[in-house]
């Protein structure tokens, strides 16, 4: 897909071409046998079908279509269909889908459709919008790429670090869309986590040696390793402290920790490496009681330098509470909850309620839980809050 997109210069037409080529392969190969280089065959057929379609398209003259195609080819590095060019094509496609000129809200769906090949219906379901709405957004985004001249080409090395940040953010958002509790199909959301990890792996292969790319992959692996333990058999959310650690995927954890170690060795820290390090603190603790909260609090303090957001400050306060006692954590949380934006975040009030409960201030804890409930969190969290209120009210 990536190679055909580069050769044709139009994402929508390339997609159709690739689909037609696959259909042709399914018809011809069983009877006539597989060609010597199947990938080259598919790309060649897809490209011909795509350029045929561009010529037939009455909105654009033949000359313009040819010019667009030649322009796209001339813009690409020579090298035909060898590995280096293929990797470049994939990176170029991901970068194009995450281009800053595209509406931030469309970058994740576009990446899922064009790079991951997810069906539009599944993407629409994941984002809780009707399918025609999502289809329309994707059409507009592909048109913008074509008509505004967003290049389907890896930018010069000097620009790559800036653009990579945007891509990493999109991959991270794909993962969180699958990971955080929300209504919707559990299977689809697990699929999103897998897609994100696949993308992160592809990026790590395409840009080896970049510590933040490795850091993101480590973070996703370490987080996803806990997936089996996060939901109870009755479908409720299980807090990290209460999870059955024997259900954690040790292979993923080992993989993630190795990636993180390699990234940290470069001596160029960043937000994803820090988040991965925090996840690693949890994954290397044999039990909740053995967790090194002081280390986690210190890591959140470092993370604040890269991501000075109330969310990170709140997480740091919660870690301080675990390390130095509920009163210390509560003091930090009270400072953070003075921020109007953060005060609308249910997790803040849940965290306050937990600490108030541990200090024996049950009435205040219930009040904080009710505030969290008023902020309309998702169903699993709602069930959790309700059960905690019941416990405290006894």
């Amino acid at each position: 897909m990536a190679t055909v997109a580069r050769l044709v210069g139009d994402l929508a037409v390339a997609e159709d071409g690739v689909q037609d080529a696959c259909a042709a392969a399914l018809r011809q190969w069983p009877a006539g046998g597989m060609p010597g280089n199947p990938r080259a065959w598919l790309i060649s057929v897809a490209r011909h079908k795509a350029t045929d379609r561009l010529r037939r398209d009455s909105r654009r003259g033949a000359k313009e279509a040819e010019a667009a195609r030649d322009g796209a080819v001339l813009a690409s590095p020579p090298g035909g269909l060898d590995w280096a060019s293929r990797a470049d094509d994939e990176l170029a496609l991901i970068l194009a889908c995450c281009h800053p000129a595209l509406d931030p809200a469309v970058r994740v769906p576009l990446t899922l459709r064009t790079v991951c090949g997810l069906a539009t219906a599944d993407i629409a379901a994941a984002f809780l919008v009707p399918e025609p709405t999502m289809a329309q957004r994707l059409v507009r985004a592909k048109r913008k790429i074509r008509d505004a001249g967003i290049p389907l080409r890896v930018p010069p090395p000097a620009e790559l670090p800036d653009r990579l940040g945007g891509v990493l953010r999109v991959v991270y958002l794909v993962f969180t869309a699958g990971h955080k509790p929300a209504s919707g199909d559990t299977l689809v959301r697990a699929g999103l986590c897998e897609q994100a990890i696949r993308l992160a792996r592809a990026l790590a292969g395409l840009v080896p040696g970049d510590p933040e790319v490795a850091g993101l992959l480590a973070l996703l692996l370490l987080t996803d390793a806990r997936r089996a333990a996060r939901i109870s058999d009755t479908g409720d959310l299980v807090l990290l402290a209460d999870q059955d650690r024997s259900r954690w995927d040790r292979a993923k954890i080992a993989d993630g920790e190795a990636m993180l170690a390699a990234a940290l060795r470069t001596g160029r820290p960043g937000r994803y490496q820090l988040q991965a390090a925090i996840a690693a603190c949890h994954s290397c603790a044999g039990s909740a009681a053995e967790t090194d909260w002081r280390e986690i609090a210190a890591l959140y303090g470092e993370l604040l330098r890269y991501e000075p957001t109330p969310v990170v400050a709140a997480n740091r306060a919660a870690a301080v509470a675990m390390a130095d006692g509920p009163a210390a954590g509560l003091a930090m949380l009270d400072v953070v909850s003075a921020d109007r934006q953060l005060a609308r975040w249910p997790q803040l009030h849940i965290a306050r309620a937990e600490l108030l409960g541990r200090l024996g201030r049950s009435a205040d804890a219930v009040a904080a839980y009710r505030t969290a409930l008023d902020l309309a969190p998702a169903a699993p969290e709602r069930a959790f809050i309700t059960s905690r209120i019941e416990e405290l009210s006894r």
Partner: protein
Amino acid sequence: MRYLFLLYGPDEPLPAPGSPAGQQMIHEWRAATDAMARAGVLIDCGPLQPPATATTVQVRDGETLLTDGPAAEIKEQFGGYTLIDCADLDEALRWAATVPAAFNGKVEVRPVVQIPAGDPARAPG
């Protein structure tokens, strides 16, 4: 690909031509457009007289209607344009970020529709 920069500035009067602020403005503009000319991407550019000098034309039912003022009443002043020809949107955006309007106003980067040579829709010349 050709791109048109629509230069929007805040709705306030421009500094007087001879004044220090006015000369500074001209100097900054020259620097930006000279760089684009040296890079071979500049086709044309120019400042526009203020929106109050505009006349808007509409023809409806065979009748020509004239309005005193710009077509759209907006807070920002559409004050100038730059037309360039460069490789792709990334390059256009890099140049757009160098013009003074990007710092104290907004620059809209609009791709010009590519009409192939020989097509009757294309303007002569």
